[in-house]
């Protein structure tokens, strides 16, 4: 995997993205699925880097045969297309049905007095998790604002509706002050922990049997702040239907190891939770680039 900074943007022109939001104000997302089936074919044909990454995932990491990997590569992209459509449906205000597995863990951690870190991931529909999760206290989201104008505008509007606060990621790392202040005031902080931004320092650990790079920051911050850590996985079950899985990775009490070792332990727990979800929902792996070294 590369150590270079991520610069992801949602595909499609501004007009296309706005049209989708207008359509979903009146119709369910499945009405555009036939277009998604065709769009995905073109995307696979022309998005070489993403195609290679997903092929590696299915063929080398999950061990599928050639034909089976080709079919699953298409279905993986298709699932991503549907997840993107659901995101625009959420922007349009459509209702999504969500079953929660681990509600008691969520209630216990979120209702405590201390701050909480949510280590998020590019598995499932993470953005929808933020919109549908009614936090009992203010939630701050460390966000990469390099996406398209339409997506960023709607993301901001949706965040305001849900009382979510954006902490913009800065190349000079000055966002760490806002992160600390959010946590020390007892709030929730959500951070992506599986993608490198702005050349952030990488740590390596195996996932699905081969080493990959993870940003060191989220794990070191979680350990240094000594707050409970959870991962939330919003996994797509079908049209308008999701299951939210809650996994507690730490209660914030660390003993007996150096902070770097503790951060390493936290990373391993995070990866184990990721692998558990991938075993259940292998087609919801949404890293469209060479993730492994």
């Amino acid at each position: 995997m590369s150590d270079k900074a991520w610069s992801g943007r949602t595909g499609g022109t501004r007009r296309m993205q706005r049209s989708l939001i207008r359509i979903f104000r009146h119709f369910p997302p499945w009405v555009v699925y036939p277009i998604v089936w065709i769009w995905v074919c073109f995307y696979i044909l022309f998005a070489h880097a993403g195609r290679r990454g997903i092929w590696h995932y299915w063929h080398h990491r999950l061990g599928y045969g050639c034909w089976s990997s080709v079919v699953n590569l298409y279905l993986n992209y298709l699932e991503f297309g549907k997840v993107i459509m659901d995101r625009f449906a959420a922007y349009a205000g459509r209702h999504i049905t969500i079953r929660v597995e681990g509600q008691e863990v969520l209630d216990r951690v979120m209702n405590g007095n201390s701050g909480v870190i949510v280590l998020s991931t590019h598995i499932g529909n993470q953005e929808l998790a933020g919109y549908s999760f009614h936090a009992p206290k203010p939630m701050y989201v460390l966000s990469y604002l390099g996406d398209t104008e339409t997506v960023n505008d709607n993301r901001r509007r949706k965040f305001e509706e849900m009382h979510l606060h954006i902490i913009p990621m800065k190349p000079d790392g000055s966002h760490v002050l806002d992160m600390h202040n959010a946590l020390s005031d007892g709030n929730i902080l959500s951070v992506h922990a599986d993608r490198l931004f702005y050349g952030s320092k990488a740590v390596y650990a195996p996932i699905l049997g081969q080493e990959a790079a993870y940003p060191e920051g989220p794990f070191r911050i979680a350990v240094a702040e000594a707050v409970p850590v959870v991962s939330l996985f919003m996994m797509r079950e079908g049209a308008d239907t999701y299951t939210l899985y809650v996994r507690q990775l730490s209660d914030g009490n660390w003993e007996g190891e150096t902070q770097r070792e503790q951060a390493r332990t936290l990373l391993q727990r995070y990866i184990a939770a990721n692998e558990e979800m991938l075993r259940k929902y292998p087609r919801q792996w949404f890293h469209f680039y060479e993730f492994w070294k």
Partner: protein
Amino acid sequence: MEDLKLELKRQIIDVLNLEDLQPSDIDDAAPLFGEGLGLDSIDALELIMIMDKQYGIKFQNKEESKAALASIDTMAAYIQEYRTK
């Protein structure tokens, strides 16, 4: 003031796990970030936490925190003026 600077250096070495360094190796005026000690943004968070937990200083402004955490000299001066613990 000198005692405070020594205390700060010991805390930085301890929290950032800089086992190869002695307090005397850290120049009071040298920048902590970049070409000086070479600390990064996550290390900055550890310094922000030292200021918060040990001295009761909570920064609200990024520019102010950047200036205060520039070197041991600036940290000590800021603590002396604004500490609540």
